[in-house]
């Protein structure tokens, strides 16, 4: 059993109980699922659950818990639950169905995910994920998700990076949209039945704790600006990732860390904050006006070939005029076994290396080519258009270049955060009654997530994990009557939130919220991005502290407190990013090794690949908040690998 207690240098005591059930790996989940405490139907009616976020994890959890009979309240900051950023996921969702008869299995999906995560994830969680993956596909088909099909009427699959089987299910380049609309429709059905109360255009601004347990939230109605108190026997955070700390990322403009950060400051430990996924195939930055970056799905690497010119002199030339002999298809050269389908972290670093060596292309010279010439010659334009038509159109709209005729220019961009709130096997944080699901938790992807696994994890958590595991806690809460929101804990929490909003509005400084956000993003990208080193991280911590101080002295927020005020919303989120950024740098500084998306320049092999230091760092770093002025405590959950041998990851 992977139960862990470790005393970090700057802390007195600390206990992290992963609550992984005993027994052999393959049967842990089935056994646990059949023995975890249940809540009887008549008692479920008496229990209230709050869900923050309506992406894949939040919507699926809210719908399923309501189907089971719990009273659910759901919150999202968008104008409709259907707009959560899961909707933008393009490529697909993995499942160990082995419909292609190509050797896939639950074990292989489990193995690929642990290896892809560079051996920094919890075995039992990943195995459970692989086990329920097949159920997700069935559930989605039942809801009417129009997955791609072959002419025989059966479900089609494609390949994704880091694996050698074809296990990715997809709905054109809009898989996230279709899965989310499936979960949204299930949620809508429960809203109509009255078992879910939906609060759109609401933002959670604090957790309310009573006797150490999460008992509710303070939320701001974004239209009126008024604060509201909501009680729940349990609170589920499915609020997504924090990639927007970098300002430029593939996240939606509104994606934020605020809910998770409030939880952290209320005692929920933050796991592996430095693990950030930089996605290799995004449209490069075109200028200072850039507000966000756009992903070009990893599925493109099925047919596209990545290259740079062999000679620096060719870098500005028309790429279609550069003969094959003068092109360096560097992924195929360096990683012959996986070629263009190496995992994301590997592909991103290789692109950076090429650009650093002066082989970058395009106006800015910070890009590499993704070329479909050979695929079009082999399969015809029609087939390529069927597979990727919408992506090609999107690329052309943004860049004004036609990817059927001219290779795409791509470069890595921040895309996903593997880190998040530390959770045990039940998805419970270190605050009783407070849970984290989907990208908001740290759990299943280790130091690097494989493509098409985020959708899988979000839906696994919401449809098939939390509905069972929450019983372990709620079965002990059936005698707790709903607590009035007049309770002093609610009043106190509301006052704290109101004071902070008042303070933000009263600064009346000279610089916009965005200007601070951009400066933070630059510090993070330069020092805690694709490559990190100790002096850079130390410098970044100082710079972030100074920027935070300046923000609280000089930010300008126009408009009023009690009205629809997007600048005020952004200010609260950026204030939280300004604290998170520092924690990410601290975590990156503590981890004296390279693994997955975390690449410390001091720790690399002679070939420039990531160098893990297993004896010292085979742990999850779980950070405990100790006050605004104090350095957080580090707790370690040591990871045990009983079913997989720790090896140097090789895709050669």
């Amino acid at each position, binding site marked *: 059993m992977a139960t862990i207690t470790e005393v970090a240098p700057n802390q007195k005591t600390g206990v992290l109980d992963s609550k992984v059930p005993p027994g052999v790996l393959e049967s842990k989940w089935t056994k646990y699922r059949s023995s975890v405490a249940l809540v009887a139907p008549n008692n479920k009616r008496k229990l209230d659950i709050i869900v923050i976020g309506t992406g894949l994890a939040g919507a699926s959890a809210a719908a*399923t818990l309501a189907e089971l009979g719990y009273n659910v309240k759901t919150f999202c900051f968008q104008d409709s639950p259907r707009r959560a*950023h899961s*909707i933008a996921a393009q490529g697909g969702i993995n499942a160990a169905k082995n419909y292609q008869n190509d050797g896939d299995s639950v074990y292989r999906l489990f193995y690929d995910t642990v290896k892809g995560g560079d051996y920094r994830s919890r075995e039992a969680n990943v195995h459970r994920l692989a086990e329920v993956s097949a159920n997700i596909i069935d559930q989605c088909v*039942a809801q009417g998700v129009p997955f791609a099909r072959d002419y025989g009427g059966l479900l089609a699959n494609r390949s994704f990076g880091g694996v050698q089987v074809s296990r990715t299910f997809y709905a054109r380049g809009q898989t996230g949209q279709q899965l989310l609309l499936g979960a949204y429709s*299930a949620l809508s059905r429960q809203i109509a039945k009255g078992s879910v109360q939906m609060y759109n255009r609401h933002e959670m601004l604090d957790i309310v704790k009573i006797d150490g347990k999460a008992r509710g939230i303070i939320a701001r109605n974004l*239209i009126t600006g008024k604060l509201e108190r909501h009680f729940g026997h349990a609170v589920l955070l499915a609020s997504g990732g924090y990639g927007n700390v970098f300002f430029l990322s593939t996240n939606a403009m509104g994606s934020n860390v605020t809910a998770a950060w409030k939880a952290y400051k209320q005692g929920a430990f933050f796991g592996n904050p430095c693990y950030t996924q930089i996605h290799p195939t995004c449209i490069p930055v075109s200028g200072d006006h850039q*507000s966000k970056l756009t992903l070009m799905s990893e599925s493109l690497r099925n047919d596209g070939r990545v290259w740079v010119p062999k000679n620096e002199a060719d870098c500005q030339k028309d790429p279609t005029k550069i003969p094959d002999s003068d092109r360096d298809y560097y992924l195929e050269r360096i990683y012959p076994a996986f070629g263009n389908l190496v995992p994301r972290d590997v592909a991103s670093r290789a692109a950076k290396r090429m650009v650093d060596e002066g082989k970058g292309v395009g106006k800015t010279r910070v890009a590499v080519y993704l070329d479909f010439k050979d695929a079009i010659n082999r399969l015809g334009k029609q087939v390529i258009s069927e597979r990727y038509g919408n992506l090609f159109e999107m690329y052309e709209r943004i860049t004004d270049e036609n990817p059927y005729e001219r290779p795409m220019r791509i470069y890595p961009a921040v895309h996903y955060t593997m880190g998040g709130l530390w959770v045990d096997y039940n998805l419970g944080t270190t605050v009783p009654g407070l849970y984290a699901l989907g990208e908001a938790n740290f759990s299943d992807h280790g130091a690097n997530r494989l493509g098409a696994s985020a959708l899988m994890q979000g839906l696994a958590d919401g449809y098939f994990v939390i*509905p069972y595991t929450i019983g372990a806690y709620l079965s002990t809460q059936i005698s707790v009557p709903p607590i009035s929101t007049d309770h002093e804990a609610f009043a106190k929490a509301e006052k704290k939130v109101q004071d902070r909003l008042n303070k933000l509005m009263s600064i009346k400084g000279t610089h916009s919220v965005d200007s601070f956000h951009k400066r933070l993003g630059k510090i993070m990208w330069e020092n805690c991005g694709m490559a990190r080193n100790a002096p850079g991280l130390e410098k970044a911590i100082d710079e972030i502290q100074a920027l935070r101080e300046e923000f609280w002295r000089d930010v300008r927020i126009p408009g009023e407190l009690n009205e629809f005020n997007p600048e005020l919303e952004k200010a609260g989120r950026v204030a939280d990013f300004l604290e998170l950024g520092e924690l990410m740098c601290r975590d990156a500084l503590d981890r004296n090794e390279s693994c997955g998306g975390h690449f410390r320049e001091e720790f690399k092999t002679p070939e420039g690949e990531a160098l893990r230091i297993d004896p010292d760092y085979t742990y999850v770093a779980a950070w405990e908040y100790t006050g605004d002025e104090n350095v957080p405590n580090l707790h370690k959950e040591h990871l045990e690998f009983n079913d997989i041998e720790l090896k140097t990851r090789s895709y050669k």
Partner: protein
Amino acid sequence: MKLNLKVWRQKNGSTAGKMVDYVVDHVDADMSFLEMLDVLNQQLIDKGDEPVAFDHDCREGICGMCSLYIDGQPHGPWQRTTTCQLHMRAFKDGDTVTIEPWRAQAFPVIKDLVVDRSAFDRIIQAGGYISANTGNAVDGNSIPIEKTVSDEAMDAAACIGCGACVAVCKNASAMLFVSAKVSHLSLLPQGRPEHQKRVASMMTQMDKEGFGGCTNTTSCEAVCPKGISVTHIARLNRAYIAASLSSPKQEEAK
């Protein structure tokens, strides 16, 4: 380039609004339309004015949150493109650009260019789903679905719920939105059992929300950023007649 903007400003739902003129300079052809508005807002904040409120989130054309009536056209001059994907190379130096919110009774203005589209959510809640509780599903391959049928369902399911169809329609009808959802679900075998009930209750809710009727001008298809076809409206009309002919009692007996 330099642009003259005419922008709808409205403090909130209970005050009157008006068009206000602004000039934005240093607009780059590679900017998206919303990035141009970011520049305007930065300019307004620097001057101590209130920025223009507009809805937006993913900025990659899929979340459906951005809207904007640009020069008399929902989502602006490019076909099959959301406002966030519209780029400034669509305009030239010195152009005057008029920016208004969606106009429809069922989409009341919240502030400036932001409207309330929760009527769409309530239409989906009325029946835009397949009743399949988690855990009930059979194997995904147990019911083969003809590829062409599945592809057509996907065409309909591509709707992003932005509301451009309503905004452009002289009747402010939501028929394209409703019909896309009905087609998506009812083309699939999984969606057949609830088909008639779905059609009847979604249509009832659409009327209740204050959307107008359809008079087949097909302007909705022309402005839909996802190219959703009016064929779905024809299919919905047929289904609606069939649903009206089958009485609720017969429905129950089935």
